[in-house]
């Protein structure tokens, strides 16, 4: 595939299809979007197959000078590859989920989604700081439109909150980027990743980037836009928001904060761990008392994202690889959970948990898949949720046993709120005749959920497929940051080995 600008194609296809969708009728627009996203998925699979793990750090590199400091520089490493795969995998599912749910302004809707796909892929592929910024912030626009136009009754308030939060972070990040360019005279991300800023400057830059990434992820206490945005967004909007947009924050930490400012990252580790620890306990307890399904899943996302920040700032391999797997797994699982909410929302037009119950009776297929995703969300071994959670917590323990103790309470609380949700939705008896009369999943819905289920199990049983492409890149990151790695608090001091207390045979 050398010589072919695959990444440009990957970005151009949805972009062009999005424009095309604007000029056709509603039904044709759906098909255009579906075909375009499926082609992108196929291209993504080719990309994955062509990617050489253990090869050069940056592969499929393209560079075209646009003029001025701005360059069309693309290229990916294994970490970006995995997130690109997540995006191209979820996109056709989002289009499928909107197939019948969206009936007004369909061409514009499909165009917004395709534009979003192009921008998301651009974020992960960009090698130029300004290009990255444009994609990163540009992604706000279609999401903002999707919530603001096709959202629920309180969409205005939600999109306002969403916009204000993310904008506040963006401004600071932009200033920081300009300072970095001024200091080094380059906009190349690979060059900046090995640039050494003075520790005092690092601290300011780190904080500015943190403002943006913490909002995107989101971390406590800048998370309150997420539940509102999810509740108001259409199903597919929630899927992409939880599945890909939240990952931008984690990607930002791994691509910018850690390699560019290792000393500052170590310096602010207590801050990150404290906020993450609060997030696990706080948002899990809030999730427990939610009456709206989407809000519950949204709050659970905040708790799960805390595992990402714990893992990333653990400064060791298990932590970082675990954080990446948590991101991939959460992208699939929370996306699937939002689809599950969408399935019954489409039937009854309410997200109130109390209106459902006993769905195992009339929707056994739905109950089965919902159970699988619930278990993946609580991190049952054998599902994708476990591997990431386990590795990131292992890494956390090496960095801070206190952090691990607080983070691990998440496995208790997570089980409590997810199973309590499942009980109220799928078990018990139906209190309402309309809920009891809902039909089981149709073929389209099976096509949306079954592929995710398959990947969730694949990642749980054989995560090597996903860890392998990232291994060298995590290794490079580790060699970059290890000089700043703080010592863990779990100090082991070996005394003289005492004789075994009991005779052993």
């Amino acid at each position, binding site marked *: 595939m050398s010589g072919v600008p695959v990444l440009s194609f990957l970005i151009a296809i949805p972009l062009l299809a999005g424009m095309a969708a604007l000029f056709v009728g509603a039904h044709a627009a759906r098909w255009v979007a579906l075909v375009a996203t499926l082609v992108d998925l196929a291209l993504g699979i080719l990309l994955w197959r062509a990617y050489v793990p253990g090869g050069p750090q940056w592969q499929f590199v393209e560079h075209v000078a646009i003029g*001025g400091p701005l360059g069309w520089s693309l290229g990916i490493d294994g970490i970006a590859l995995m997130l690109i795969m997540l995006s191209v995998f979820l996109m056709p599912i989002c289009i499928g989920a909107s197939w019948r749910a969206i009936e007004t302004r369909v061409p514009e809707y499909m165009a917004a989604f395709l534009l979003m796909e192009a921008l998301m892929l651009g974020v992960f592929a960009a090698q130029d700081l*300004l290009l990255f910024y444009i994609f990163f*912030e540009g992604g*706000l626009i279609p999401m*903002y*439109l999707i919530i*603001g136009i096709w959202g629920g009754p309180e969409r*205005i308030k939600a*999109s306002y909150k969403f916009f*204000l*939060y993310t904008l*506040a972070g*963006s401004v600071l990040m*932009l200033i920081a980027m300009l300072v970095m360019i001024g200091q080094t005279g380059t906009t190349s991300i690979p060059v900046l990743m090995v640039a050494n800023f003075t520790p005092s400057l690092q601290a300011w830059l780190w904080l500015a980037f943190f403002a943006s990434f913490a909002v995107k992820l989101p971390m406590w*206490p*800048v998370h*309150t836009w997420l539940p509102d945005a999810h509740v108001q967004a259409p199903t597919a909007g929630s899927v992409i928001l939880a599945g890909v947009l939240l990952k931008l924050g984690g990607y930002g930490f791994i691509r910018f904060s850690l390699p560019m400012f290792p000393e500052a990252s170590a310096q602010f580790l207590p801050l990150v761990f404290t906020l993450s620890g609060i997030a696990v306990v706080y948002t899990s*307890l*809030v999730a*427990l*008392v*939610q009456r709206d399904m989407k809000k519950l899943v949204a709050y659970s996302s905040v708790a799960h994202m805390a595992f990402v920040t714990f893992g990333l700032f653990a400064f060791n*391999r*298990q932590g970082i*690889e675990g954080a990446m797997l948590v991101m991939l797994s959460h992208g699939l699982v929370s996306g699937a959970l939002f689809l599950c909410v969408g399935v019954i929302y489409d039937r009854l037009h309410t997200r109130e948990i109390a209106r459902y119950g006993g769905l195992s009776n009339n929707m056994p297929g739905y109950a089965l898949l919902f159970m699988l995703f619930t*278990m993946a969300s609580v991190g*049952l*071994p*054998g599902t994708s949720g476990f591997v990431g959670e386990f*590795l990131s*917590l292992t890494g956390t*323990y*090496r960095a801070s*046993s*206190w952090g691990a*103790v607080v983070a*691990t309470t998440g*496995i208790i609380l997570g*089980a*409590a709120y997810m*199973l309590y949700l499942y*009980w109220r939705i799928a*078990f018990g*008896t139906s209190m309402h005749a309309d809920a009891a009369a809902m039909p089981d999943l149709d073929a389209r819905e099976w096509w949306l959920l079954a592929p995710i289920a398959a990947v969730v199990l694949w990642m749980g*049983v*054989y995560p090597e497929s996903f*860890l392998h492409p990232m291994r060298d890149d995590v290794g490079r990151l580790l060699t970059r940051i290890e000089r700043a790695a703080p010592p863990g608090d*779990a*100090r*082991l*001091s070996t005394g003289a*080995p*005492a*004789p*075994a*207390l*009991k*005779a*052993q*045979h």
Partner: protein
Amino acid sequence: MHAIILILIVFLPLFAAIVAGLGGRVIGRVPAKVVTTGALFLSCALSWPIFVRFLTGSAQPAVVPVLDWIHSGDMAVDWALRVDTLTAVMLVVVTTVSSLVHLYSWGYMEEDPSQPRFFAYLSLFTFAMLMLVTADSLVQMFFGWEGVGLASYLLIGFWYYKPSANAAALKAFVVNRVGDFGFSLGIFGTFLVFGTVSIPAILAAAPAMAGSTLHFAGMTGSTMTVLCLLLFVGAMGKSAQIGLHTWLPDAMEGPTPVSALIHAATMVTAGVFMVCRLSPMFVTSETAMTVVTYVGAATCIFAATIGCVQNDIKRVIAYSTCSQLGYMFFAAGTGAFGAAMFHLFTHAFFKALLFLGAGSVIHAMHHEQDMRYYGALRKDIPITFWTMIAGTLAITGVGIAGVFGFAGFYSKDSILEAAFANGSVHGGIAWFLGSLAALLTSFYSWRLIFLTFFGPARWAASEHIQHALQGEHHDDPSAEHGDSAHDAHAVPATGSGGYHPHESPPTMLVPLILLAVGAVFAGIGFGRFFVSPEGAGAFWRGSLAFNEELAHAAHHVPWLVSLTPTIVMLIGLALAHRNYIRVPDAPAAFVATFPGLHRFLTHKWYFDEIYAILFVRPAFRIGRFFWHRGDERTIDRFGPHGAATLVGFGNRVTARFQSGYVTNYALVMLLGLIGAASWALWWAR
């Protein structure tokens, strides 16, 4: 050892679960049952030869690699099946009880509309349990650990339309997760200290770590003590030890075959298995061993006291299970790992037998579970009666040394003797509490037999029997419920009401008879392998920390000590006989004399009430507080809303938003931002 055999043993149940679970609707009810039951009998048939070869010493421990799993730096975990003596014991216990329970369920679940689902869950459970016992690494053990937890959750909540079943299932999962919290931290810590999660590697390195210290969450402790105690928290959750036991009695909401398989014979013993598997690690920490002993001894006596006042036949057996698990733990804690495994082995047979027998009684009594409405059943259901007698003789430990004894006689005696022979303070306390619990065991076990099979028939007052007599269609087995449905203080009138209980079908009786054979002969047949100072070392071959010195000492305890279990057993029998046969008014008189004690016991030492006050209600209250006060009134007020107001254009912005210019506004803002950035850069250049 052929690798393929081991793979078949473990994966046949998984295959069957998938076929029955996903294809049950397609292939139909009977094929689903045939596939699952057939797979289990095949697994069982393949397991016994392995066990026999370990008995004869002709088999070698082996590890069969299956697939790579998690590789992250120095963390390397693979799917692999390990078999040694300890695993071989568990293989036969799990597959034997599971296949018999599958068979039993043909009869017991006959009326249930979703049988394929039930059998799929049972097979899935068996697969997870087999993965647990064949684990070569702590992480795979955790896989099995959580897998059995999932199956247990699904099976407790099998009748998902019952609120009580759902509550019990949720409670079981969450309480087990509290244990898993400790187990997980234990795994993380073990990895930190040893740099590996491979069990053989950890066990080999453990002795060298004794004497080192480890910082954990602000404290400093002996490394091995910290790790063992964290792991032990996991064992406490799974094996329902005091403090984390509250889920087990509630788990009786599940169908009775489930109680027999999961909540008596196999899953709940996983904690004991874990401690035995990691015994070379535990023996390096005297503190951990002491804690294990105290927790086991406390559970053993505490659960037995509650078992004495329960009226629901299944709950009596559930508390009995809890208590017997306590025996196994204090055996492990006093260093008698062989005795712990021996009791695990015999207990699997006689406790599964008692549960299945109880199921047969419940079946005969039209889903009535309250023993106060039983009585005089020995003539009507003779096979159930005699097999349950065998189970009771086994659990109470009837036997004469050197002649013959039922299963529990050998295993329980070896535990008590080892605790005494240990010579430490905690060993002595465990011996005393264990002997006292043996008295109570005898009392509640015979109380169950006397209330159920002897005395006058008290069936007429039972609602279930009345339903049956009125010919109402009420065959749904999910009508099982506890004594909550009845007035707790009513004394049921005597009389059969014209009801005729019927003996269960052969599919249910065959498992009972086979398990009864186990309950009678498992002790005398296998004692020399599991615990005897001569043969056990060669049998275990290092798969657990067998202490030959202790085994010798246990053989030479004073004669009064070895006679104690028999004496207390007879006292318990006599007390039960007096209270429930000779002087039927005695229990009521006892309650009248000690109302406080009785209330304390019927409320199960108030654990549930205390936990509700300490944990459950505060969790919801704090959650609501964080949501409304934290998110809505603090973060939002001072965050987005505050920001808008502060800069003074909040009102205008909101007005603009509401008038529909949202999208334009956003676009303008962003384009402006991008423009500004570009300009700044041009300028900077």
